[in-house]
């Protein structure tokens, strides 16, 4: 196991009280695994990704542990965590297109960043340039300011920078959402290539777009209202989803060839519950066509029903 997360809880402090954005998530990621993490907005998927690298602002670590390659990550200790960031855990943030310092030449910024890790720019330069070419940029971007690059180019540059120290775990947070279909495909496939070439050992790809994840991820985890609903190998998830939420979600996605006149798809009625005071029992029960009395009383545990396939639903077990 490369990454083991146990009962992770991260809340947001607000005036009205704590928003339980991440409320007890347990999962493991193997070496070489690309795990896709999907769910509706506000389900806690980005909070999960971010809390593995930097708990900031109004985020508050309430409980749970994270172990990377057998070493516990001090996720709530900013200073201790600095030793792991970049080198062991790294992130391609959602805001990648504005993540580069506008007043520094990109190469200079990378050099200064590397220097903080005791890596000499001169030593890393060759590999850096190789990777820049790999993502379809030209070497001279290092002598440019970010403003001279398009949004997509900046994002690819950030992909290279974030993975330069060959981290064990990479978090890619909604990096395809702002892209056109054609670049979406290029970026997503580049992620796979990074893994294949060993730039990163394992990866968590956070997105709301399940179909992208189907293309690139080995395993798929679906979150709902701060909790994991289901996790399984991608093919299994697509062919035999067990959680009603997963099933409804997948069946609501139109594909090329599906047409309104011939096959009317339907969404999931209702909205997710507020995470300020989440309901007891199963959080999906209000929207669930299969809900029974037990769902309101007792929270379904996240249990493995077959190797690698876990579900949190009374009706699935």
């Amino acid at each position, binding site marked *: 196991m490369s990454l083991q997360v146990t009962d992770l809880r991260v809340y947001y402090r607000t005036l009205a009280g704590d928003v339980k954005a991440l409320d007890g998530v347990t999962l493991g990621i193997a070496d070489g695994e690309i795990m896709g993490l999907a769910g509706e907005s506000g389900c806690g998927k980005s909070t999960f990704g971010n809390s593995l*690298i*930097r708990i*900031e602002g109004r985020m508050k670590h309430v409980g749970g542990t994270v172990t990377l390659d057998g070493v516990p990550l001090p996720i709530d200790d900013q200073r201790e*965590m*600095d*030793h*792991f*960031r*970049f*080198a062991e855990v*790294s*992130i391609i*943030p959602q*805001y990648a297109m*504005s*993540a*580069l*310092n*506008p*007043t*520094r*030449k990109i190469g200079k910024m990378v050099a*200064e*960043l590397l220097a*903080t890790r005791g890596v000499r720019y001169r030593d890393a330069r060759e590999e850096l340039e190789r990777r820049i070419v790999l993502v379809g940029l030209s070497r001279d971007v290092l002598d*440019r*300011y970010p*403003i*001279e690059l398009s949004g997509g180019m900046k994002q690819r540059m*950030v992909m290279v*920078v*974030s993975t330069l120290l060959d981290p064990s775990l990479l978090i890619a947070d909604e990096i395809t959402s702002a892209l056109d279909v054609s670049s979406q495909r290029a970026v997503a496939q580049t992620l796979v290539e990074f893994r294949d070439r060993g730039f990163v050992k394992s990866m968590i790809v956070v997105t709301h777009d399940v179909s992208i994840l189907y293309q690139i991820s080995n395993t798929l985890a679906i979150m709902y209202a701060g909790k994991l609903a289901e996790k399984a190998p991608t093919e299994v998830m697509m062919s035999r989803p067990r959680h009603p939420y997963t099933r409804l979600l997948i069946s609501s996605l139109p594909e090329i060839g599906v047409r309104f006149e011939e096959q009317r798809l339907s969404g999931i009625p209702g909205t997710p519950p507020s995470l300020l005071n989440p309901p007891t029992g199963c959080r999906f029960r209000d929207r669930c066509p299969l809900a029974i009395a037990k769902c309101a009383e007792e929270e379904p545990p996240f249990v493995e029903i077959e190797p690698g396939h876990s579900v949190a639903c009374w009706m699935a077990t």
Partner: protein
Amino acid sequence: MRRYFGRKLLVYGLTFFIAATIDWLIPRFMPGDPVQSLVSRQGFGLSAAGSQALVDYYNRLFGLGRPIWEQYLNFWVSLLHGDLGRSVYLTGRPVTSVIMSAVPYTLALLIPAILLSWWLGNNFGALAARRKWLDNVVLPIGYIFTATPYMWLAIIVAWVFGFILNIFPISGGYSYSMEPSLTLGFLGSLLSHWFMPFISLFLVQFGGWAIGMRNMIIYELDADYSRYLGALGAPSGLVRRYAFRNAVLPQVTGLALQLGVIVSGALVTEIVFSYPGIGKLLLAAIQNEDFFLLQGIFLFVIGGVLIANFLVDIAYVLVDPRTRVGMSGGTA
């Protein structure tokens, strides 16, 4: 970049043109007859013939007898020759030379006060953004200083250091008992007279820059590039250095916007200390109703501010790479 400067120069050229035109227009189109009002104030007790002589004199001076367009054209011709007319109260000395003899004093106050307050203010502000106790000290003091009228701070400085403690001389540019010369004694006198107006100018500006920088830094530390560095575990030193660099840019723009105010502040500060710069000259011009001198000072101040603005623009290009790579970045 050429467009950036082109646009700036256009604005400055237009500004000077408009300002000079206003300068020309005002004595001619203000309500009432300026010449009459001048005469009635200056020629108090004169006979009717004497008043008429004075009226004629002023009409001739302003060139009021000729067609309007010719007056305007003549005004520009003499302006471009550096001829701003003659000072009435200083017995007919050319306004240009009167002003030129005052300019060094004003510049000696302004340049160090502006540069030092900007530089120290920015560094202090950046420091305050990171130390809570400093923040709690710098902020209130800064607000008090920026809210203080320039002349009042000058008065208080003069009162405390000049009257109560009696360390520095209260008025003048150098000791009245001395002749200007290149001796150590005279330079010392210059310096001791210079200090109080300088420090009061410095103090008023300092607070504003410190507060501005503090706010900008906090803003920048929240920016995406700062968050990214944080997520990659960069030490706070590097993050702060980047934030400072980006926060300085609006401070440079701010400097350009503040120049007019600072110069005005210098004028009133000089008046408090009877410091022999443009400000003192200005007061004399107003009290003696020396309108050529007044209008000359006006044009001079505007020209100076425009040149200073342009220097700041050049500085902006030097610190902001984005203007150099040809994209937008600077503000109009």
